[in-house]
Each structure stands twice: as C-alpha cells, then as structure tokens.
C-alpha cells in the first residue's frame, strides 16, 4: 500500500499550477514560474488515495483514480479505460480521475505483447477485460466493507453512481474508501461482470473526456515540463543518415550568451542552455564537419531505380497457395499493375522531446512514453542501473502515429546521453520541426507489382504480388517475432492471407538494405498494401464490367465481416446514386488490427485538382466502448490517410532529405477535410483495433473515385490527376 501511494505521488502529472503573477510589473527581471509535475498531484485531492488493485484507488474525498497503462496520445485511451472501470464499479462518471501508470512491466504490460507498450491498436482490445475486472474487484471490496459496517448480507447491497446502499443505509465510495481498501481483494474468477444489456457507460456516446485541460492550455505535455534548475538541449544532427561528427568548433556557439555547454554525443553535437531559444541560437552558431563515410548517399531517384529493378526479380517467398505461377503463365486474360509509395514522416504536432535527470545509477524521465519496458531497459543499460531504477513519468503526447514507440528509443537515448553530462540536473531535449522531418524513422518507401489472371467470368484465378521495401522489424528487438523466414510480416500484411477469394496466390518480398531509418506509421504495412490491393481489385472489376461493390462481394462470400461493412457502407453512401458531372464514387474495404472498415468517397475533379466531398466509413471493431471516440478515431484516421493521398511525401537527394518543415512537407489542412460519416456494425464481440484501421481504405477509395471519373488507374501516392 505505502509503496503504491508513493508511486502515485511520484508519477502523476496532475494538474497545472499557476502562480499568481500579480504585482510583478516593473519589478525588473521576472523569474519564470517553474512547473514541477512531481508536486502537482498533491493538489488533485487533499487526501491520499487508497489502492484496491494496480489500477483503481479511491480517496476519502470520493475521487476514483484510474491508472492508465497506455500512453494517451489522442486516441482517447484515458476515457476508454476509465469507462470500463466505471462501468463495473458503478462509479459516478464525474468522480473518475485518470493518471498514467508508472513504468512497471509486471503490473502494466500490454497483455497482447508482454511488454508495457502502446501500439498496434491494442490499447482497448488488451485492456477491456482487465479494466472491467479491476472495476468489478474494487466494487466488490466496497460492498464487503459496507456489509461489515452495516452488518447486512453482501448480496442485499446495491451500488449506483458511486453510492453504496442497503435499506436506510448509504455511503459514498469515499466514505468507505479506507475500510474497503482493507478488504482482501477478490479472486478474479469470483467476479461477475455485467451483461452488455446492463451497460450504462460502455456504448454511451456522451461521456465527457477524461484527458482534460486540452481546451484551456492546461494539459501537460513534455514540452511544458519545467523543473527547478532544468536545462534545455538541442542537437545538431548529421544531415545524412549514418553520418558522424568529424570535428566541430564550439567557440561561436559558446559565445552565445546563455549557452552553457557544447559537446559531442553519439547522435551529433549537443548544445545546452537555460532555454530553447538560446540553445537553438547556439546550434546555429556551431560549426560541424560531418564524416559521411558510412552515410547513406543515395536519393529517392537512385532508390526508385533499384526498387524498380528488384520488382523484376523473384523475391523471398512470403505466401504460396495453389500454383499461381503456372496459372499466370498459361494462356488467358492477364492484368498487371505497379505501384509506388514514398517515405512518410509522422510529423506529430509535438516534435520529439524528453526530460531526463540522471542520478548515478538511477534516472527519472518525463515524456510521452509509448514503450515503457524497452525504454526502461535501454536507459538502465546506459546508466549501469536496473530497469526499476529508471522511473518514467508518462505524460500526454502531442500525437504520435507510431513515431514515439521507437525500437531503439532513439530520442530518449539522445536525452540520456546529454543528461549524463549534467548529473543531478533535469535536462529537456527539444527537437525542432526540422529535426523531426529530417530525423528519419519514416514509413518506408515501397513498390509493388500485382498481377492476376482472370477466368471467363472476369474473376481472378491467380494472384501474385511482389513487394520491394525496407524492413521495419529487421535489426530491432522485435525481429524475432515479426521476421519469419526472411519475411517481415509488417511488410506484407494485407496482401498475404488475401481477403478476396482467389484460389492460387503468391506473395514475394524484397527487403533492400537502405540507410534511411524506417518505422511503423499508423496502420504500418496496410498503408501501402491496402492501396495496391484495393486499386487493383477495382481495376479487375472495371475490366470485367462489374460494379466494384458487387465484384468485391462476389469474392467475399467466405468473409461475412468485410461483406457486412461493405454492404452497410454502400447503403449509407447511396452507392451508385446520380452525381454531378466530374464527380465520382470510389470504394475500398480493408481489415487490419482485428477490425474491418469499408469507406466510400465522393470526389469531384476540376482541371488537375480534385476534392474529396464526402466520406462514408463503416467499421466493425467489436464492442464499441465509446462511440464518439471511435468516430473521432475514424475521422482522424481518414484525415491522416487522406493526407497521404493529397500531399505527404518525403524525398531525398544525394542522401539529404528534401523537406524540412510544414511549408514543404505538406499535410492536410481544414479546407481539404471532408465531412466523414461513421457507422458501426453492431457487435457484442470483444473490442478490436480502432486507432489505425480507418487509415488504409481512404487513399484507395479516393484513387478509385478518380478512376471512375477519368477512366485512368492511379498507382502512385500522393495522387496526381495529370
């Protein structure tokens, strides 16, 4: 108990503290207020929380605290997991307060991964049962305490909206907090969870969010952490991936008033100052000579030539079903298309950053941590401590889209390398937008060649896909489970185990070694495999003269889940309805992270420009815990996917990234955002992925709508009409 409370005290970011700044006018230099997240929790409640299990505690003043084991980065996991607890606990929604859990793999592992980590759209899927059980267990302890206190049978006690009742007796959770915490926690298999028909919170679209402070500027992000004595660091990185520092001249940087230190680290040259602007001025003044002898010198043009040549040669076998080669080489109708996808930057609105304080063999970090277990192990090794000596305070992240779960803990390592030079002092590493756009770990560039031979009915008899693109998993700690016989499953997901019925299938993969770091990007391999699959199937449908929805359904008879989302989308969109001139509909359906999504778009074309006017999206993600959040996630997934259709593209010339900021790395803005209607397929099955599955279908649906208007097939992202 005591330890748990200490953890709570230490780890919770809590609310913001604003000093009264009145009366400072004319007082000369203003000393900025310093926000210390360590001190903030004390303000949340005047009384300490009493813990019931790893996730739930109650304060005597009637707050229910829920520890959230996943990173809240906009996907709504605070609200989602709190919903599960509140539901089974019969708490009042207004008494629920959420905090990020500390780093503790034993207690807070992602049950689908065995690591404390957020990703793969597993947040709700792996926690749904666990968090409901945590709520039910806490409820049982409150009821036992009340039964003892009133000397009545447990079975006769009712609980609703945070109040425990029996006849004339009633008590709030807070009033029972201490007595309940003293109860023995019930065995998990003794808990009786609600039937879905009894749900009052699960499925409720109107619950206020629990990730509060985002409308008032008071939510705490890494960028906002201010600790006593804290220093701010920036790093001059090699302009080329794999480049090293040959030499540097720090004299001009050190001459900048306020710059405290300039030194080399593994990833470049660090400049440390009191504040960000001073540090960046120091970096501007710094002179660095780079050693490119091990750097990647190729650009997008050279890589494209390599990839195109690999596309013509056999790759490593990823899947073989039947005998596609023979069927494809026999006489008969045959279609082929090649596809090209650029590197993509995640570009979350909050650039990478991290605060670390190193004290000998222990460390404390504050940041939007997505990979607690891995980050803890990596940092422990760097400081010669144990993983549990690395305290991680997880804060809200300003977006992620995959970037913050880095298998090498890249920017965390960078922070620790700098903080080690300033022992006992908190150091905040801040990446500029340029550091972010040019910092690598992109969605890998890919090329695909898809071929099919067609039967007399126009349906595919054989299907072959050959893919070329860097492996994300190879060389990471995750390779063991995700690279199978030379095939990175994340490179081919979506094209292997093809959703459509085709009797003969062959999938091959080339994974060239390129010095540009790559990483998962919202929906990972599905970002490209769904595009080629869905544009190709549309091409086959048009070739057969069959309506694209009908054609898909005829190949999905064995797949009721995809059929259902597709049918509902067609119905809601008015598939085939009359549209104005130069306007067309396009469809795509794709399953990923356990969920199926169909999207139908209406696109208008004017000259060489197009505009997505309307999007209808249908998702089957099992039980919908919070309908408004699922809708928001699908809206956001559509926006990010649409951004790749319209403009996101990262290129290199001679190993140098061509883009640097939002003026040339062009992302979706409001004027290009269509209205998105989101519908659900009713389901009582456990929840499946929500954050990512809305992304893959949008770009191919738009390409297919363009094809319906112009008659051309669009095989490259971003899309260009001309």
């Amino acid at each position: 108990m005591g330890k748990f409370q200490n953890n709570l005290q230490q780890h919770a970011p809590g609310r913001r503290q604003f000093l009264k700044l009145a009366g400072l006018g004319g007082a000369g230099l203003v000393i900025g207020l310093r926000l210390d997240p360590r001190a903030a929790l004390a303000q949340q409640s005047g009384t300490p929380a009493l813990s019931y299990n790893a996730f739930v505690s109650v304060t005597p003043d009637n707050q229910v605290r829920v520890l959230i084991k996943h990173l809240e980065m906009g996907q709504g996991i605070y609200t989602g997991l709190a919903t599960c607890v509140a539901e089974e606990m019969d708490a009042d929604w207004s008494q629920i307060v959420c905090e990020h859990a500390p780093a503790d793999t034993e207690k807070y592992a992602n049950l689908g991964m065995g690591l404390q980590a957020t990703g793969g759209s597993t947040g709700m899927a792996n926690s749904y049962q666990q968090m409901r059980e945590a709520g039910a267990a806490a409820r049982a302890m409150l009821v036992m305490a009340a039964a003892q206190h009133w000397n009545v049978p447990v079975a006769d006690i009712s609980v609703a909206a945070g109040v425990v009742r029996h006849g004339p007796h009633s008590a709030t959770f807070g009033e029972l907090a201490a007595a309940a915490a003293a109860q023995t926690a019930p065995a998990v298999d003794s808990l009786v969870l609600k039937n879905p028909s009894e749900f009052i919170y699960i499925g409720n679209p109107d619950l206020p969010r629990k990730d509060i402070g985002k409308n008032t500027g008071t939510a705490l992000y890494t960028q906002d952490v201010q600790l006593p004595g804290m220093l701010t660091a920036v790093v001059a990185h090699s302009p080329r991936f794999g480049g090293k520092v040959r030499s540097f001249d720090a004299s001009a940087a050190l001459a900048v008033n306020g710059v405290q230190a300039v030194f080399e680290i593994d990833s470049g040259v660090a400049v440390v100052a009191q504040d960000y602007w001073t540090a960046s001025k120091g970096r501007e003044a710094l002179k660095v000579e780079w050693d490119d002898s091990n750097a990647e010198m190729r650009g997008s043009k050279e890589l494209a030539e390599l990839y195109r040549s690999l596309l013509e040669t056999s790759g490593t076998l990823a899947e073989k079903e039947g005998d596609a080669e023979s069927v494809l080489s026999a006489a008969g109708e045959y279609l082929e298309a090649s596809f090209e996808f650029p590197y993509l930057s995640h570009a979350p609105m909050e650039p990478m950053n991290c605060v670390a304080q190193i004290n000998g063999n222990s460390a404390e970090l504050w940041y939007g941590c997505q990979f607690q277990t891995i980050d803890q192990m990596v940092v422990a090794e760097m400081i010669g401590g144990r993983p549990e000596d690395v305290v991680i305070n997880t804060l809200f992240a300003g977006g992620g889209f995959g970037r913050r779960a880095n298998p090498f803990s890249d920017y965390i390592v960078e922070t620790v390398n700098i903080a080690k030079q300033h022992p006992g002092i908190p150091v905040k590493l801040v990446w500029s937008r340029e550091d972010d756009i040019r910092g690598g770990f992109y969605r890998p560039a890919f090329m695909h060649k898809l071929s099919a031979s067609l039967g007399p009915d126009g349906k595919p008899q054989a299907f072959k896909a050959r893919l070329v693109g860097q492996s994300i998993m190879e060389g990471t700690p995750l390779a063991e489970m995700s690279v199978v016989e030379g095939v990175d499953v994340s490179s081919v997901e979506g094209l292997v185990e093809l959703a459509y019925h085709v009797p003969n299938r062959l999938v091959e993969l080339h994974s060239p070694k390129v010095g540009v770091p790559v990483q998962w990007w919202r929906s990972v391999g599905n970002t490209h495999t769904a595009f080629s699959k869905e544009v190709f199937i549309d091409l086959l449908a048009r070739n057969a003269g069959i309506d694209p929805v009908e054609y898909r359904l005829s190949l999905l008879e064995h797949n009721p889940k995809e059929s259902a989302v597709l049918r509902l989308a067609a119905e809601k969109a008015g598939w085939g309805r009359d549209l104005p001139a130069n306007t067309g509909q396009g469809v795509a359906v794709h399953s990923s992270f356990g969920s199926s999504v169909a999207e139908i778009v209406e696109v208008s074309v004017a000259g060489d420009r197009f505009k997505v006017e309307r999007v209808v999206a249908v998702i089957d993600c099992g039980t919908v815990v919070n309908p408004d959040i699922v809708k928001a996630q699908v809206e956001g997934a559509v926006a990010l996917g649409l951004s790749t259709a319209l403009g996101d593209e990262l290129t290199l010339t001679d190993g140098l990234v061509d883009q640097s900021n939002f003026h040339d790395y062009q992302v979706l803005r409001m004027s290009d955002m269509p209205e998105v209607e989101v519908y659900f397929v009713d389901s009582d099955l456990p929840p499946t992925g929500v954050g990512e599955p809305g992304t893959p279908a949008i770009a191919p649906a738009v390409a297919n709508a363009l094809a319906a208007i112009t008659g051309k097939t669009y095989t490259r992202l971003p899309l260009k009409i001309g």
Partner: protein
Amino acid sequence: MSYSLNVNGQTFEVDVDGDTPLLWVVRDHLGMTGTKFGCGMAQCGACTVHIDGEASRSCVLPVSAAAGRQITTIEGLSSNAARAVQQAWVEVQAPQCGYCQSGQIMSASALLAKNSNPSDAEIESAMSGNICRCGTYSRIKAGIRRAADAINAGEVA
C-alpha cells in the same frame, strides 16, 4: 535587453535579446506553457496568440515587436467569443492529442470576435494556418459554428 510586455492584462519586464520570439518568452521566461511550439516558422499555428485582438503566430514575432501591445494567450482568454469557443470545443469533443488546440482556439476566437456569423469559406480561410495532424478539422468547424450560434443567441454570458 529589457522589454515591457502586457500579457493577459498584466505587465511583465523581461530581459532577453530582442530577436527572441514571443513564443519562447511566454513559455520559457513567463512560464505560460499553454501556447505551443509546433514549427517555428508560422506554418502550423500551434503558437497562435492574440496581438491587439488579431490572431498572430508568436513563434516568428520578435519580442521587440510585441512590446507595448496587448498580448493574449490561451491562459488569458476571457472574451465572449473565446468562452463560447471553449464551451463549444467541450461539446463537440474536439481535441484528440490536444497539442494544436490552444492555437486552434486562439484562431477561432479571433475570427468570431470580428465575425460572429462566418461562412464555411471564411472559417476555412481563418483556420487555414492551423494544422491538426489528428484530423479534428470537422469538429473544429462544427465547434466554430456552434460557438457562433451561441454568441448570436446571446447564450454566452
């Protein structure tokens, strides 16, 4: 050198180089961290503040140019339009990651303070400088419409 800044109705003296962007003065020297850093070149709008009531990108505004003007940050929002926007943001559940939302709210409230009945095109124009990578644009637009309705119906006290 020393600059006198009027931020949220209060006067502060800061001793910084004149080319220091207002964003970093507000964040690192005054400790008001609601105004966010996103790009540093007026491309994303996360750093939007009001200068004499106009939405302005504080990441490129030198402190020397901000001195003597009325600066409002998200912490100091109090106008009818701003309160209507913040209330509407809660009602439409606009934020996802939330990092851009201070800037979105500052741009939206500056728009509505001048034009309480903006057309879709006027909304898109006023908000074109604010990026949201989470893609909350539809909700932001709906929130602006809702705030406009509340202002016009006299529901904002």
